[in-house]
């Protein structure tokens, strides 16, 4: 039998510290669903999703009860729809989005991602039709998330696609103005988008994947926060605890958290006979008190999130999380690291409200976190080209640093910097961030073309 102290530490982690499996996401390949007509294609898509995911939610719930660990979200990701619908028009893509929404409702999943395109180098006519369809497709559906990859370290940044992103984000927000521009929260622009990420809004089932695969996203900033607090409490003498010991604690706690995800993933995969893909260990906060990444900054020594030192802390946190996760799981993938989604993290939102965290500092922090400018509400009157330019900066960080970066910006219609926006539930609330130097970047966006890949991409 295990030692009592190990047992009690594990019980604490599960019962009191918000340990959960944030998501089990089933990736489903839809490439061969394409048929001679749109109707038949939609029918095939529905059939495929029902076939693979019919028992998915019930199985996740069963395993969750067996192991006593909540599985918060059950999701599906599909092959990027622009590939599935090659040659289709805008209205056809909207019809596919509605089909996907219906199929997601039928099988009972929370969200379906993969209404996506890969545009890092060039764009086809289909891709343009697809991008045009995004605002309407997302505003008409409930469970569909869209994403577009417009840059990679290998290929550079597609500036033509980038220019379209600002307009798409604005249209999405305006089409969903009655809910504060919530549509924009379901659309994310990527650089180096992974094909096995289980987290939304950016989950896709990459072209490199098998017919169906299960990816698990585990979280647990609360678990890390409590373990750090306990360690600090055990060392009350100044100078008796060093930063590397704190990093080690994060690493070990991450190991335990990841292992729980691995256990659930293997169990669900075994029961459904669907291949187990990866565990994505990402510290993804929720608006619940005590489940915040922002709180970790304060525990680790800066009194205001965004104060000097914040970027360094995030770099250490992200690295320690990756190290613990990699050892715990057979296959780690997806984004794996720390998320800093402003609206979804009560402490980050508070820092925006009191002025300690500004957009420029947040951008600097995204150089060392695992995603990017995530769930950032900006003033509704921010022009499309400025939004594209903010996205361009974020893409450049990802491209040059060979990491995934993303931008999920929400220009909240009719609201100004400092005003509050709330989407409720896991999407949270935050004061709107100020965008300085708005309207100063349009000539840059107007160039179009491509930003060349950095020199270190030529490793061949």
């Amino acid at each position, binding site marked *: 039998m295990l030692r009592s102290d190990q047992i009690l530490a594990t019980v604490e982690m599960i019962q009191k510290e918000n340990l959960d499996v944030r998501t089990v996401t089933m990736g489903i390949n839809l490439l061969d669903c394409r048929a001679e007509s749109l109707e038949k294609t939609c029918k095939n898509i529905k059939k495929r999703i029902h076939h693979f995911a019919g028992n998915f939610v019930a199985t996740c719930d069963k395993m969750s009860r067996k192991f*006593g660990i909540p599985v918060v979200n059950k999701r599906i990701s599909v092959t990027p729809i622009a590939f599935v619908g090659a040659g289709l028009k805008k209205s056809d893509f909207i019809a596919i989005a509605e089909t996907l929404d219906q199929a997601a409702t039928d099988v009972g999943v929370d969200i379906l991602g993969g209404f996506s395109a890969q545009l890092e180098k060039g764009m086809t006519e289909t891709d343009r039709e697809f991008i045009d369809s995004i605002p309407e497709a997302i505003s008409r559906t409930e469970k569909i998330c869209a994403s577009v990859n417009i840059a990679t370290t290998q290929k550079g940044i597609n500036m033509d696609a980038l220019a379209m992103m600002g307009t798409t984000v604005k249209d999405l927000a305006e089409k969903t103005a009655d809910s504060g521009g919530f549509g924009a929260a379901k659309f994310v622009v990527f650089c180096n988008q992974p094909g096995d990420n289980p987290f939304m809004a950016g989950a896709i089932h990459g072209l490199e994947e098998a017919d169906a695969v299960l990816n698990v996203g585990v979280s647990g900033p609360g678990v890390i926060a409590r373990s750090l607090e306990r360690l600090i409490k055990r060392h009350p003498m100044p100078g008796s605890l060093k930063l590397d010991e704190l990093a080690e604690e994060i690493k070990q706690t991450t190991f335990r958290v990841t292992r729980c995800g691995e256990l659930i993933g293997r169990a669900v995969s075994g029961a459904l006979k669907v291949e187990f893909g990866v565990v994505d260990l990402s510290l993804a906060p929720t608006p619940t008190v005590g489940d915040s990444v922002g709180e970790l900054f304060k525990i680790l020594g800066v009194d205001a999130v965004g104060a000097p030192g914040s970027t360094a802390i995030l770099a250490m946190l992200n690295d320690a999380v990756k190290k613990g996760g990699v050892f715990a799981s057979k296959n780690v993938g997806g984004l794996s690291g720390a998320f800093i989604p402003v609206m979804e993290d009560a402490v980050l939102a508070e820092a925006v409200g009191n002025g300690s965290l500004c957009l420029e500092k947040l951008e600097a922090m995204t150089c060392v976190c695992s995603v990017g400018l995530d769930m950032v509400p900006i003033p509704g009157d921010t022009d499309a080209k400025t939004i594209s330019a903010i996205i361009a900066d974020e893409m450049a960080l990802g491209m040059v640093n060979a990491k995934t970066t993303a931008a999920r910006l929400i220009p909240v219609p009719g609201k100004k910097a400092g005003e509050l926006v709330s989407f409720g539930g896991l999407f949270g609330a935050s004061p709107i961030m100020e965008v300085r130097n708005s309207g100063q970047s349009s000539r840059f966006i107007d160039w179009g073309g491509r930003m060349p890949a950095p020199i270190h991409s030529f490793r061949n």
Partner: protein
Amino acid sequence: MKKQMIISVMSKDRPGIIASITGAIYKLEGDVSDLNQSVLCNYLNMILSVSFNENVNKEDLIAEISHIKTECKFEVSIKEIDQGGEKIPPPEETYIMTVHGPNRTGLVYGISQFCADHTINILDLATTLKGNRFSMVLQLDLQNCPSPIETVQSALEDYSEQSGQTITMQHNDIFQVTNEVTLH
């Protein structure tokens, strides 16, 4: 053909008890496959699983142990069993229950009766008393439990409320995967 025996020994604790008992087993060419011992209030209780050659019987072992020079007599009981010596892994439906709360009489009885009512077998049980705080960790086998896990969990919640103890029950695998390097 080997003969498997389960040997239980109780005695006042002193340095060298384990050496004496295992020495007696060694003289009879016994092979210890598992041993568990604990000391409570200065009394040692040990249970061993040992395999012997077919010609060794219980009486030989008792005679060998009785030759050990000791102040306090050993209380020994021996059972011969049919099963082989290999370690049996815990069944798939193994859960860990933890119980914490203020000490009072009837705590172990109450929780073990709860387990009995649900046909739950207790595989292992350890208790600790610190000041007036009593805590208990149990390893349980639920494979013969007729109710689904959610029914047991909700009955346990009711019992926890009524007894004033904080009680949790989680699957054994969670504890293994979070505390051991190897993932089975």
